[in-house]
Structures are given as structure tokens and as C-alpha cells.
């Protein structure tokens, strides 16, 4: 979970630290999601973000440009999520059958 000996990196954690609070929000595992940085455009798996915290909140920064990508705060009665630093979040999900599969005649 930590980033040992990474030159120039001061973040004590990686994105796996966000798994707990994010699991309260998302049905799918968001640590394997890929986020695109609004600042530099690079795509990064959430698990590999540079994460500062855990208090007062978790701050996930882009490994490429250090911009803030996402933030999570767990207050006593709420989870607060900021995704303002990302342009997209792609979460691997169970495959669904493509439209058109199955017995079309049953629908007519």
C-alpha cells in the first residue's frame, strides 16, 4: 500500500487506501478503475494514485502531474466525494449480453 523509495514522491500511500471509503459509494471495485487526469490527460488506475491522508481526508493525486484527481472524506454521517480532477472514470464491470442476442422473435 505504501510507495517505498519512489524518488520525488512524498505521498505515503497509493490508491488502495481509498478502497474502504469508495466501497461505501460504488458497487464495483473502484481501485481498478481508470481515471483520466483533467490536468495532463494521462490515464491512471486508481490503485496507483499518489494518496495523501488519511486525515483530514484522502487526496488522490496524479502520478504524472501531481494534480488532485479525487478526494474522499468520511464524516460521521456521510461520505463526500470530489471527482473534479478527472474527465472520466472507467470501471471494469461484468460483461452483459450485447443488444440483439437471444430470441428476438419472443419480443414481437
Amino acid at each position, binding site marked *: 500500500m505504501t510507495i517505498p523509495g519512489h524518488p520525488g*514522491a*512524498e505521498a505515503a500511500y497509493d490508491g488502495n487506501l481509498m478502497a474502504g471509503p469508495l466501497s461505501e459509494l460504488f458497487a464495483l471495485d473502484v481501485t481498478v478503475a481508470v481515471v483520466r487526469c483533467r490536468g495532463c490527460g494521462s490515464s491512471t488506475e486508481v490503485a496507483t494514485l499518489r494518496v495523501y491522508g488519511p486525515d*483530514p*481526508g484522502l*487526496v488522490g*493525486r496524479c502520478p504524472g502531474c501531481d494534480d488532485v484527481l479525487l478526494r474522499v472524506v468520511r464524516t460521521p454521517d456521510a461520505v463526500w466525494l470530489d471527482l473534479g480532477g478527472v474527465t472520466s472514470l472507467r470501471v471494469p464491470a461484468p460483461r452483459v449480453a450485447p443488444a440483439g442476442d437471444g430470441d428476438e422473435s419472443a419480443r414481437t
Partner: protein
Amino acid sequence: MDFVTRGFQGRPRGRDERLPPGQYLTGDFPVLSAGPTPGVDHDEWELWVATEDGTRHTWSWQELMALPAETVTVDIHCVTSWSKLDTEWRGVSLDTLLADVETAADFALVHSYGGYTTNLPLEDLLDGQAWVAYAYDGDDLRPEHGGPARLLVPHLYFWKSAKWVRGIELMLEDSPGFWEQLGYHDYGDPWREQRYQGD
């Protein structure tokens, strides 16, 4: 049968009256950061104050050092529940910095090198309540604690005392800062335990 009846136990023994509710004492100086420590050289450092009409006042490091400084001993209280008593700081009072600034603003948004922000009422920066501090415990303020200079507003939770301060935006309306946007209290009075929105 209880020897001491419930509701008549008095103050917990040994609890310091200078400790706000929900806080514990520490002798350490914990470091909490929302990002990498920005390195700012004195010759590049600048502090600005911008008013609501766009007027901008700036101070170089040399100009800050030339202003009258104060040494203050204060208690500090972090929202993560640690408190540290009798901390000694040296810096320039906001009363001095804002003395010649004309404004009708009621609020301030403090900006830091590295992008951090925090909001507070302008009146909480005045009347001997706030400083731009550049020394701690007799030494230059270390970068991990906000050096070269940080805001010091000890009567509010310490996230309001922005590390690596670089500017103060004076505004007619309140605007939430980095943590205030994400669930933390807009004012943050430790004695009223205003940690989160709604407290």
C-alpha cells in the same frame, strides 16, 4: 451501590481546561498534508492580498521581514483531535499587513503554494487573532510545517492556518476552501467542536 452518583462526577481528573472538547494533548507536532511539500525560495516568495475590486497588494520576503514582527505563544487544535499547548511562533500580524488595505469584504479565501485554500471571515484575521508566521520555536519554520511562511489562526481548527501561504483573497461572499468543499465546517471553532458541516 455506586459510591458516586451518576451526573455528579465532576470534571475528569487531569483534563486540561485549555483542551477543547474531543481533543487530546500531544507533545509531538504531527504533519498532515494534502499534497507534496512545495519548495519556495525566499527570493521567489511573494505574498499578495487582493480586494474585491481587484486591487492587489504584494510583499516580497524582504518586505515581509522589514515589517514589525511579534512573538506569540498559543495553543493549537487540529480537527483530527490533537492539541498542542504553548507553541511559540514569530510572524507579522494580519493587522499590520491589512492596515492599508481598503475593503468592504466580509470573507477571506486564503491561497497556498501547492494549491490549497481555506476560507474564513475577515474579522477572524484581525484584532490580534492571526499572523503570517515564519518561525516556530525559535527557528525558521520548516517546510513540512508550512515554511517559508504559513498563516496562523490559532483560535480556529488548524486546517484554517494554511501552510505555505501565498495570498489572501478578500471577498464579499463566502467561498468554501479545499476541505470546506468536502464536508468540513466553514468556520471551525474548536470550542464548539465545529468539525463538519452541520456541527
